[in-house]
């Protein structure tokens, strides 16, 4: 059964239709990639899925439940966590606090919100530390987020999403702006998460996609033009003709 | 119409410079006092009406150059504190120079008296102010719409990067926008003087209204500011007929009510 499903999802900004009638099914436990050139509407699709803004038309169904138009913070509680393409962390907070914030949000232990000291939440801190260990940042826990390298910030970005203990992980170009070395590390990281989470991955670097994906959907000018296994997509003449050739050359 | 004038100037400053200008009311008051002194100096109302706002614009020029320019990189908090401090200096400065007691200023002989419309007596001077403010708003609007400099200013509200990419000195644009905003506040103050007289606190009262106008018109939305200024002016006049004491508080209540329904303001897009 599809864990996450969209039905002719559309988002128009004035005259520009950024996402156009996208119908997509993400099966539980798989890694589903969405590829397409910049401006194809991938990030907008994520913004719709996570409730950043409501769609113009169409539906989003998560785990059999219609979540169309639900505000972002509620969707997060349902178990959809995302990372951002442009690093989007809490700069002045420590690495641990960055992750702690996300872990606490999922815990919903609101009762002691004001009165208990935040270091009194051992289980939240523990979950945060596990998430940091998962991405390899455990030893930097006390540094402020703004002081670490760009590559490490990308790892932190991922850890914040993980700490929310999500059921679906939406990763928006986790390797954006990384060097080839760092990209390799990130790919290994994502591969390690495969199976533990249902993952939706946005990428435009082909080498990342083809190695790790179970399914690949291709987006072009706001619409889905193809879907299949990585091998099928690579063979698909329409996809190749449309623009894949150009991307491979890149 | 005067509210539209104030709102337009403030909207220009907040829009282009992206700073909270809490000295806008003080500039308004300074405009009125400059007029008062200019009349005494040159003995001619019309000449004074030309000179006073120019003086305020020059003051604005100096303020932007010396004080606000170093603060663009600082946060809104320090910008606010600066313009707030400035507002204290200007309004207290007025008391130091002109004394704590207000003055009344007669309109020029030509505009004294009024028209008897049968049911209501309308002073000539008020009519003059209405026409004058209307012309000024129109002139400012034409300047912004039709001239090259106006186009640059409007572009400055949209995107500073674009303007600087076009090879235009953004700092000069900011200075010009602040001076123009100050000019509009100054002439609004000067025009008001013969209607309400002069008092050191006149600026603060006007400041709140100017912010309401900008908030309702939408930040940086110049046409919105003009429209909101007119609406507020009319609303206040109507309320004043029935419940004079509350007419000022009602302006703010109207704003609060509108913002409940339309949080982005009447004409705001953001």
């Amino acid at each position, binding site marked *: 059964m599809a864990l996450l499903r969209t039905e002719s999802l559309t988002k128009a900004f004035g005259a520009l239709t950024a996402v156009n009638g996208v119908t997509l099914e993400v099966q539980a436990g798989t890694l589903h990639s969405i590829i397409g050139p910049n401006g194809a509407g991938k990030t907008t699709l994520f913004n719709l899925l*996570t409730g950043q803004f409501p769609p113009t038309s169409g539906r989003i169904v998560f785990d059999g439940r219609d979540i169309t138009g639900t505000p972002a*913070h509620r969707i*997060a*509680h349902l178990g959809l966590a*995302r990372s*951002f393409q442009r690093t*989007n962390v*809490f700069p002045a*907070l420590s690495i641990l*606090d960055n992750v*702690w*914030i*996300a872990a606490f*949000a999922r815990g919903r232990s609101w009762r002691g*919100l*004001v009165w*208990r*000291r*935040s*270091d009194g*939440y051992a289980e939240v801190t523990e979950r945060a530390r596990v998430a940091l260990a998962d991405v390899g940042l455990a030893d930097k826990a006390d540094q402020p987020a703004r002081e670490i390298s760009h590559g490490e910030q990308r790892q932190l970005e991922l850890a*914040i999403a993980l700490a*929310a203990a999500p059921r679906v992980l939406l990763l928006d170009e986790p390797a954006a702006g990384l060097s080839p070395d760092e990209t390799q590390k990130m790919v290994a990281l994502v591969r390690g998460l495969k199976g533990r989470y249902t993952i939706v991955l946005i990428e435009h670097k082909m080498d990342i996609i083809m190695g790790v994906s179970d399914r690949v959907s291709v987006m072009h000018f706001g619409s889905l033009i193809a879907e299949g296994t990585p091998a099928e997509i690579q063979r698909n003449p329409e996809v190749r003709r449309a623009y894949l050739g150009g991307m491979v050359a890149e | 119409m005067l509210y539209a004038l104030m709102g337009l100037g403030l909207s220009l400053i907040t829009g282009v410079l*992206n*700073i*909270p200008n*809490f000295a806008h009311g003080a500039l308004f008051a300074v405009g009125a006092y400059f007029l008062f002194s200019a009349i005494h100096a040159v003995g001619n109302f019309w000449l004074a009406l030309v000179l006073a706002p120019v003086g305020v614009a020059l003051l604005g020029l100096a303020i932007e150059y010396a*004080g606000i320019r*170093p*603060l663009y990189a*600082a946060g*809104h*908090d*320090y910008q*606010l*504190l*600066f313009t*707030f*401090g*400035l507002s*204290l*200096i200007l309004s*207290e*400065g007025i*008391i*130091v120079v002109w004394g704590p007691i207000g003055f009344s200023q007669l309109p020029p002989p030509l505009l004294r008296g009024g028209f008897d419309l049968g049911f209501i007596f309308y002073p000539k001077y008020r009519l003059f102010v209405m026409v004058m403010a209307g012309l000024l708003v129109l002139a400012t609007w034409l300047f912004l719409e039709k001239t090259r400099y106006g186009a640059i200013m409007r572009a400055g509200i949209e995107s500073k990067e674009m303007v600087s990419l076009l090879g235009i000195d953004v700092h000069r644009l900011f200075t010009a926008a602040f001076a123009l905003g100050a000019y509009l506040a100054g002439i609004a103050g000067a025009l008001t003087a013969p209607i309400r007289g002069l008092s050191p606190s006149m600026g603060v009262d006007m400041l*709140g209204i100017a*912010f309401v106008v*900008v*908030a309702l018109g939408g*930040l940086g939305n110049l046409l919105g500011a003009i429209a909101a200024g007119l609406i507020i002016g009319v609303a206040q006049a109507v309320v004043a007929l029935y419940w004079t*004491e*509350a007419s*000022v508080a009602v302006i*703010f209540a109207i*704003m609060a009510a509108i*913002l*409940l329904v339309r*949080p982005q303001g009447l004409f705001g897009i*953001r």
Partner: protein
Amino acid sequence: MSRAWLAVLAAAVLLPMAVRHALATEIWIFAIFGLGLNLLLGYTGLLSFGQSTFFGAAAYVAGYLLKHYETNVFAALGVGIVVGAVSAALVGYLCVRRSGLYFIMLTFALNQMFYFIAYQWTTVTGGEDGMPGIGRPALLGVDFRNPLAYYVFVAALFLLSLWIMQRIVESPLGKILQAIRENDVRAEAVGYDVPRFKLLAFVIGGAFSGLAGVLYSMLFGIVPLEAIGFVFSGNVLFATLIGGSGSFYGPIIGSFVFIWLSESVSVVWERWPLLLGVAFVIVVLFFRGGCVEAWARFWSWRERRRALAGIAQ
């Protein structure tokens, strides 16, 4: 107990020996006011230019009760805190969905609304003349008309406020508010209802302002119209910024500096707000970062000079 707390305690004990009791009391009242603003400004990143709304509203309501019904002190304080919180909830509800300049303007405009209500509603507030005749009823046999007794009472309430604020800041709520300050989009994305948390910060800040407002009205026996005016909002902002809005104890230092500054310039010249305005401008242009940073800079300068002196020898 930390060193900072010891320093604050020492200051609370020593202050009434150094300056007039009324002045010492005013410093702590202003510090409570500043604590409330700092939760918004320093922790949540909300630049509210309307804090005197909550301060003044609480002062008027509690002052009215004290004046006409000679209410119990604790009841008056309780009412003031509630009025501060409720007025902050009203203002916050309209403001929290806006950001940047729009937010500042709205807090200010709503402040002006309350100001004009107080200005015109002369039968209750006394308008420009203020609302005089507010007493300080005795509590548990202690006569608060004695300035020292009232000082001790206020200082104790300040310490209590400081402790409560510290608990709030160190609680998960404090961390969430800081996360919102740092990046509200991400805070929303990980599952926090950002406007609601901002509103909560507003309400808490308003409650602190309300407490300060009531104590203020009892200190001077009058609620002046200025207590709800925008200059007051600006003053507390100045005090918080000059103390260093980034630090927890900043508002205390700021309150000391501000009250001392306004007291000393008011002796110099009748038109002291002008000098105060000059002080604002100078601080903004040359001492951004506030006292805490200026102090740090002074220390590093001294250290360097010492080091140089060492080399010279």
